[in-house]
């Protein structure tokens, strides 16, 4: 005699959700896979349940999450919808987890255009990263959704994301970085950049947003945090004098060398390489008016500065020392008039390089 369960639902007045199962759902596990993993996790012994019970529970939860997904697309709705009674702290958990992403996945799409084409390639990304296709799609759609919404909003980027999607500050900052990278199409996929983590890039994005965008000057315009300030990029051309004027270059070099003598083991290498390094940094600044060069910003930093230093075996300490004195010495140069511009440029460059320089 056979008996099959045709229909099996459980609905609580307060919606019951298991965080562990939610994670399986987010990770794109099928119900059967989730049941398997849960069984191995030992929930069964805990409550003398059977695999059947576990399956039924998992199905219930999956259905609940599926019904909630529509609301999670505009998290503000979750708070004033009437269908599910979910305590506020649970709502926050649902949202935060839904918008969380995998570091390996985001590295693959960072700086890429969030277009249909990119979405089509997600199966390759899935195969490469081991993140399920379903999860990849959710993460990609999240990026795209956040991008679309904040694209047309005025005001600070991080704050907009935080308020519109009710995310934690940290997660909102990460999304700001993703949006910023997608908007400026920074190249991050080159082999030379593979060693950098998403967090490295997110930090750099934070620096660029804070100091180089329109928002750094005026905080009530559209796209203020997404686009680099045009005038600033134009002004950066003025820095060219630091490498074109031979006197200035020599003077700068001697000032830095005086300050560093005896304080670093790589002094000789630094002294020999100074002009090349300085040229590299200033050239990056000068070329930033071209969109193409903006895209190559990170690759340039690595090629022109980080790699030479690494081959000379600089430590992070050496790097910090050099960049500090390299920046400060320029102030003492009597013929150099662009102190404010120089600080705005070098402040960001310094912190980016320090973040990107892994010993």
């Amino acid at each position: 005699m056979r008996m099959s369960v045709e229909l099996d639902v459980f609905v609580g007045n307060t919606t019951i959700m298991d965080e562990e199962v939610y994670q399986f759902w987010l990770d794109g596990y099928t119900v059967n896979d989730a049941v398997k993993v849960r069984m191995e996790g030992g929930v069964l012994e805990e409550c003398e349940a059977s695999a059947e019970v576990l399956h039924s529970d998992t199905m219930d939860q999956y259905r609940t999450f599926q019904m909630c997904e529509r609301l999670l697309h505009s998290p503000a709705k979750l708070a004033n919808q009437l269908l599910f009674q979910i305590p506020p702290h649970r709502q926050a958990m649902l949202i935060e987890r839904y918008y969380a992403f995998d570091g390996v996945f985001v590295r693959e799409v960072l700086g890429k255009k969030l277009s249909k084409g990119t979405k089509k390639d997600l199966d390759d990304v899935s195969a490469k990263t081991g993140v399920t296709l379903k999860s990849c799609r959710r993460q990609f759609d999240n990026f795209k959704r956040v991008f679309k919404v904040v694209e047309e909003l005025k005001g600070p980027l991080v704050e907009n994301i935080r308020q519109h999607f009710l995310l934690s500050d940290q997660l909102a900052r990460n999304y700001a970085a993703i949006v910023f990278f997608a908007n400026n199409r920074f190249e991050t996929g080159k082999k030379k950049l593979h060693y950098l983590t998403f967090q490295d890039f997110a930090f750099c994005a934070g620096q660029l947003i804070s100091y180089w965008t329109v928002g750094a000057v005026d905080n009530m315009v559209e796209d203020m945090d997404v686009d680099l300030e045009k005038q600033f990029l134009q002004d950066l051309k003025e820095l060219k004098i630091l490498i074109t004027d031979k006197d200035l270059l020599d003077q700068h070099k001697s000032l830095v060398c005086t300050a560093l003598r005896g304080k670093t083991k790589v002094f000789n290498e630094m002294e020999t390489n100074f002009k090349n390094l300085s040229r590299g940094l200033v050239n990056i600044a000068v070329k930033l008016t071209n969109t193409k060069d903006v895209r190559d910003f990170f690759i340039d930093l690595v090629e022109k500065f980080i790699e030479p230093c690494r081959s000379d075996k600089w430590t992070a300490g050496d790097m910090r020392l050099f960049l500090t004195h390299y920046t400060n010495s320029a102030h003492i140069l009597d013929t150099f008039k662009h102190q404010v511009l120089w600080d705005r440029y070098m402040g960001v460059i310094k912190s980016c390089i320090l973040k990107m320089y892994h010993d």
Partner: protein
Amino acid sequence: MPGKLKAKIVAGRHLPVMDRASDLTDAFVEVKFGNTTFKTDVFPKSLNPQWNSEWFKFEVDDEDLQDEPLQITVLDHDTYSANDAIGKVYIDIDPLLCSEAATRICGWFPIYDTIHGIRGEINVLVKVDLFNDLNSFRQSSCGVKFFCTTSIPRCYRAALVHGFVEELVVNEDPEYQWIDRIRTPRASNEARQRLISLMSGELQRKIGLKVLEMGGNAVVGYLQCFDLEGESGLVVRAIGTACTLDKLTPGTAPNTNTHSNTAPASNALSKDYSRARVCVRVREFPFFTLTCFPPGFLVHVGGVVSARSVKLLDRIHNPDEPETRDAWWEEIRQEIKSHAKALGCHAVVGYSESTSICEEVCILSASGTAAMLNPRFMREGCLDAGGSDHRFEDASPPSCGFCHIPYDEFNMPFPAQLTYCYRCRRQKVPDVLFTTIDLPAEAAVTGKGCLIQARLCRTKKKAQGEVNATAISNLLPFMEYELHTQLMNKLKLRSMNALFGLRIQISVGENMLLGLASATGVYLSALPAPGGIQVAGKTPSDLNYDQHIATMQKRINDTITKNKELYNIHPPESTEELVGSPIPDRQRSRLFRSTSESSDELLELDLSHGKKDAFVLEIDDTDAVEDIQSLLTDAPMPAGFYSCNTEVMPGIYNWTSGLQMFTSVRVYRLSNANLTNQGLNKIFTELCENLLKSLYFKLRSMIPCCLCHVNFTVAVPEEELIQMGAVRLNCVCVCGCVFVCLFVSGSGENEDQLQFSMELCADSTPSNNQPTSKPSGTPHQPEMSENSLNFNFPELSLRTTACKPRCSPLPEGRSRSLRSTRSMPCGAPVAVVKMTPLSFLPGTRIVKYLGIINMFFIRETTSLREEGGVSGFLHCFIAEVFAMVRAHVAALGGNAVVSYSMKECVFMENPNKNQAQCLINVSGDAVIFVRESEQEATPPLMSSGQISSTGADGTT
């Protein structure tokens, strides 16, 4: 023209996109009451329209006010074609007709469509101005309060209990009218929803009239059901208990710990109740739908009385004269009455009625508990002198009085084993007691209680008409007998001697009958200890056989010992000697039952197993072996769980305010034509056990906790689809239950650790964290009745959110800065509304009853697969029903529904056509509660211009 109904449509939000081209909607609203319709302007191109309409005024009779719902339809305006309906909201305005209930209805309601489900929300404001009308011939009964709660509502005092009221209305089911062939499913569903809403209103009005006639002002324990008789029509019927209730002014509310297991905390309360008088009229049925009584009300309990009758349905010819249906019920009630009389009782308490329909066959059932009510509370000459009055002279201790037999010892209606009461030693008590009521507050209990279920399947031949009805009525006595035996055995196995809240459901299907009996077992200290169970082979022949029996016996004994430990049942041994003679083990029943088929023939079965030693289980055939097997295979509850089907868990007194109400539905399909009784029984038992296991697993994060008011419903729906070969049988298990988390101080199970501190003064705020220390006795001592409880609050915070009726809409223009909306986030957080099938919320005090919630919904889909199959469809629908109940309660200004129940859940599917349909009927009482810690604080002012909601924490 005694009333003016006013409605205002404020705004909408989250509307669906109706115009694919613009991704927006041009919404407007039609407001209809009776035959009058008003319209708002069209609010163009918005998903969050702000109509902010004028007041629409309807001048109507109060009769209509009671019958009709206010119907709000949201539509999408279309210049060139017909306007598309987005959805509807039906608002029952009955709560506004009573001065003590809600004053206005105001809030966000889900817009519901029977095909698409919830589609956005609408903010509505409704008020009623009533003019006094002293016309004595009036047809309305405005002002009569209705309560689903089966006890005297918490903030009222019963001045007079008038007795039983019943009414029934019938109509043609729109689903079966000829017009249904040409109209859309949506129109048909809406016609049905509207009709049932109208019929419920009419029914309530008619019952109200009866109450007014009796001189009462309220109906308590209002139980409304509807029977979908298919071709032959639609019956809506209701029963209740008419009362005159006095509102207790908040300042003098005597009992704050209104648990029914807490005893009266002060004399003030018992005095109040002793003034209550009960008027039972001789000609009427002395029935009470209450299950919980004021102290002193219940004198003796005789036992369960039940009656069933099998009827053949025929078309109701004249809906205005539903004589046949009335006559059927009248017949059954007469039987119940005579059964009660046979038990020496003059009243029936915990009374309820139900039906089970399969095609043209209908089983009508009624059951209750025969009881003696205190004659001092009665009006003179109101009662038949059923019991001999001498018994009432000597006041028996309140904690055991109800156990004493009401019938004459020397003229017993059935063979029973009587002993002197184990508490007072003066009166006789039976050895086992079965009842349909809740455990009386004053009852002394040893150990803890638990849920006991008896499950049974019986196959029957598929037949038609009279033959079928006869077959069913022939089966019924055997089913009752077996269910009863099962209950008795399971009770003994748990070493308990009484059942409370007994509910036996018998459902009929095409080729089987299902019986499910649920009750809460308990060890009453006043009753003798149950003996063990002895297994005996009928013909002990060979050694193997004897050995087999010996093992069986050992297993049973071990289980009993284990259960005693588990339920903490350690009755004082010494008492038995005081009685003088050992109690012979004898099984006997207090279950009276009769089955009749269109006849007055009364069949009374003696359910005792004769004069022999009835505790002996004879395993002379495979049936008996199966019985014992099933007895022993009941899975034990996981540690930390308790369960019962009554309001409170006997033996557990420390509750937290954590609460989780849930509904679980399962449909099984059996695919084999060769069904045997045994095989079916096994499957059915397995199915119930699995469901329970699933519940335990789901709720594991809440332990230690108790599943209270667990309510199982089974059905064997008729099969619409005929598939080749295999017989397909559906079996639905609906279970609307509550889950109350309780905090057991300490982790141990022994009595010392379960002790609780006492509060002596019930008027004061319980000082939760510094209990007035006066160590209580162990829970089974009589002093217990003077204890009130000390509640443990894990948290005491109360969040009060006031949201504006007009919430700021979502920013429509995309480019608007979010900063500007920051101060007014789109829509304030939704107020938390708790739901529970209990009549109270642990750790809280109900300060106001806002009116009855009685809602009926139909949902249909033609894209079953796309909605996630049957489970996805039903999951969504149940969630939607919860949402609509919560919204209505919140709009009335309430923050909880008590005595909530899902009366009906009918599910039909046709997977081949990708279709499914479901009907759900829910009811309950909308209330405002405050946490006990807050009781000094003023209750939230609901009459202010805000939808204020006293949201408690939504955490579980």
